[in-house]
């Protein structure tokens, strides 16, 4: 580790992995509830399990992004972090606020939680992914602002690189667009319209900038390719992401009461959204092929290549599948969406966070890379999780196609719940793939505890 203050990244990474495990546990509960409806009822109802599963994902990715920023920014800026103590304080604030929120979800019913947390003062709750109580939302804003202040000051006092500028742009965008979660018009169309400004402009806008910056950082470190070359790619990727992603928001505006032109705008621009992801794939492989050194951390290189491929498949290809308005007319809000959501989040954001953790964690623990034994286990976890996710996606896609057919295309369409029974076989197979994913995740966690001959730092 080049700068002492980079060490604050470690608790963020540990918390991220811990919450990741919890997220998958709730994923398994949820998957079971798809086929055994009253599983764990009334302790954990379906809607609560779903809320916890998705909220945990977002929170642990945020932990991952913050940890990544605290690790990368001092090294990029060639200076110590502005305030490591502030970073550590915010870690505890965020962790405790997050834990209290989850406990709130699990112990009181949602309406009571809303009553006790000031939802009658400013109603922001009850919307998918933005279910957090008002207090938690305010907490997120405070943590984000302090975090941004900390890393922005670090960048300002040190060297400015393309990577840190793009990362800052992405993180500031993340904070700014989150503010729309406080805006909750009573008109349902307007509500959804601005809701997507958080959800879409995060994952198909500013998060892509964060992802590209993280990937570029790790690629510079593990390949030794000139910074100039990597930065040029970075600029092209973010330009493509913004050109396609911003107006691409329109692909969420079909059939919800917005003007018809969104069908054209959404279709045209979002059809191009795979391009930045494809550029990232080409970027990762190209840089690794042109590498000037053999980095001993093979696992990190594997994750970096993996995120390039899986993000393109999950976000790019599976997104394109149902992005055109005439197709989406049938597939809107079906299991096809769930298939896309799973692989896109895993491929783009889960894997890129694991990439940086995989690269940085050994260094934070005082060595260049983990022992070969630990790396082999980590690579096993890569393949187990990735292949399991491919199967989850394929089974959900099959379920989705069947669902669309039975529910919306067939001569005598069936009701939603009747169709759910028909596709149960695919839900079972998805659940078993989930179990394999969980085993992969346990292997990943175990890889941190495998000893063996290690290379000292600086090697």
């Amino acid at each position: 580790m080049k700068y002492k203050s980079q060490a604050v990244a470690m608790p963020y990474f540990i918390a991220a992995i811990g919450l990741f495990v919890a997220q998958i546990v709730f994923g398994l509960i949820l998957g079971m509830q798809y086929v055994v409806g009253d599983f764990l009822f009334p302790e954990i109802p379906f809607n609560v399990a779903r809320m916890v599963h998705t909220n945990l994902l977002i929170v642990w990715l945020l932990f991952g992004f913050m940890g990544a920023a605290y690790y990368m920014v001092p090294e990029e800026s060639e200076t110590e972090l502005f305030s490591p103590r502030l970073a550590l304080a915010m870690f505890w604030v965020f962790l405790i606020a997050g834990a209290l929120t989850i406990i709130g979800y699990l112990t009181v019913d949602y309406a009571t939680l809303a009553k006790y947390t000031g939802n009658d003062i400013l109603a922001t709750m009850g919307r998918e992914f933005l279910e957090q109580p008002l207090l938690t939302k305010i907490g997120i804003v405070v943590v984000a602002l302090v975090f941004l202040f900390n890393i922005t000051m670090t960048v300002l006092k040190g060297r400015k690189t393309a990577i840190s500028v793009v990362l800052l742009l992405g993180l500031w965008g993340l904070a700014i667009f989150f503010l729309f979660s406080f805006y909750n018009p009573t008109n349902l169309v307007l509500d959804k319209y601005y809701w997507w400004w958080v959800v879409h402009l995060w994952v198909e806008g500013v998060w892509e900038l964060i992802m590209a910056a993280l990937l570029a950082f790790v690629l510079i470190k593990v390949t030794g390719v000139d910074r100039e070359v990597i930065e040029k790619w970075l600029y092209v990727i973010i330009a493509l992401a913004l050109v396609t992603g911003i107006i691409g928001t329109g692909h969420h505006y079909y059939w919800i009461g917005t003007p018809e032109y969104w069908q054209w705008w959404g279709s045209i621009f979002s059809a191009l959204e795979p391009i930045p992801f494809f550029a990232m794939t080409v970027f990762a492989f190209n840089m690794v092929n042109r590498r000037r050194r053999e980095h001993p951390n093979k696992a990190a290189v594997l994750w970096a290549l993996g995120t390039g491929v899986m993000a393109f498949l999950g976000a790019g290809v599976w997104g394109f599948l149902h992005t055109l308005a005439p197709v989406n007319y049938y597939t809107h809000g079906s299991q096809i969406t769930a298939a896309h959501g799973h692989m896109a989040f895993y491929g783009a954001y889960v894997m890129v966070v694991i990439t940086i953790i995989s690269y940085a964690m050994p260094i934070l623990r005082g060595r260049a890379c983990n022992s070969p034994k630990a790396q082999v286990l980590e690579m096993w976890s890569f393949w187990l999780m990735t292949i399991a996710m491919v199967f989850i996606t394929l089974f959900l896609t099959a379920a989705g196609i069947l669902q669309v057919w039975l529910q919306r295309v067939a001569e005598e369409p069936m009701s939603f719940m009747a169709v759910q029974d028909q596709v149960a076989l695919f839900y079972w197979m998805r659940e078993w793939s989930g179990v394999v994913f969980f085993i992969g995740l346990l292997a990943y966690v175990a890889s941190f505890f495998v000893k063996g001959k290690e290379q000292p730092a600086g090697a």
Partner: protein
Amino acid sequence: MRAACPPLPAPRTPPTLAGDLAIWIFILAELLAFGVFFIAYAFARANNPELFAAEQLALNRDAGAINTLLLLTASYFVVRAVHAAEAGQSRHGARWLVAALGCAAGFVAIKIGEYAAAFSAGISLSSSTFHMFYLSLTFFHFMHVLLGMVILGALWLNARRGLYGPHNMNGIESGAAYWHMVDLVWLILFPLVYVIR
């Protein structure tokens, strides 16, 4: 005695790309975006030829034609600026860039007039499929003209300081390539939306 060897061919210089590779990737992505838009237009038109033909007639073709001339002239001025820079006369090239910016400003003024007339006639994105395409395509292009002007402005600032020369052409060539893209797209857009029936 051996026959004299044929003269060696002149050493070939590898083909070089004017401007930066990154700007070309960006230009290709832009062209792809417009290309998809044009294809969508073609599909929509094929489904509704009468509506498209009728509403197309109401467009101001004279304004479109003048704008075509303005963009082409701007492109010519940009070429002169690049040649001046290549000849080591960066400051001289700056004047050509001002001329190009003037033409671009003329385009913007005429376009704003066209939009004002359209909006006062009640044309909007939702008034018809043709109007949706007319407004979207021209506005998308309009934004590119504005970006092109920002780029030309940056080139002008640098050229005025004598930054460009035979050994430093990357910036001005990249900017010029972008401007020509803006021009090229209009050369397809104008006949497609305003003229062809």
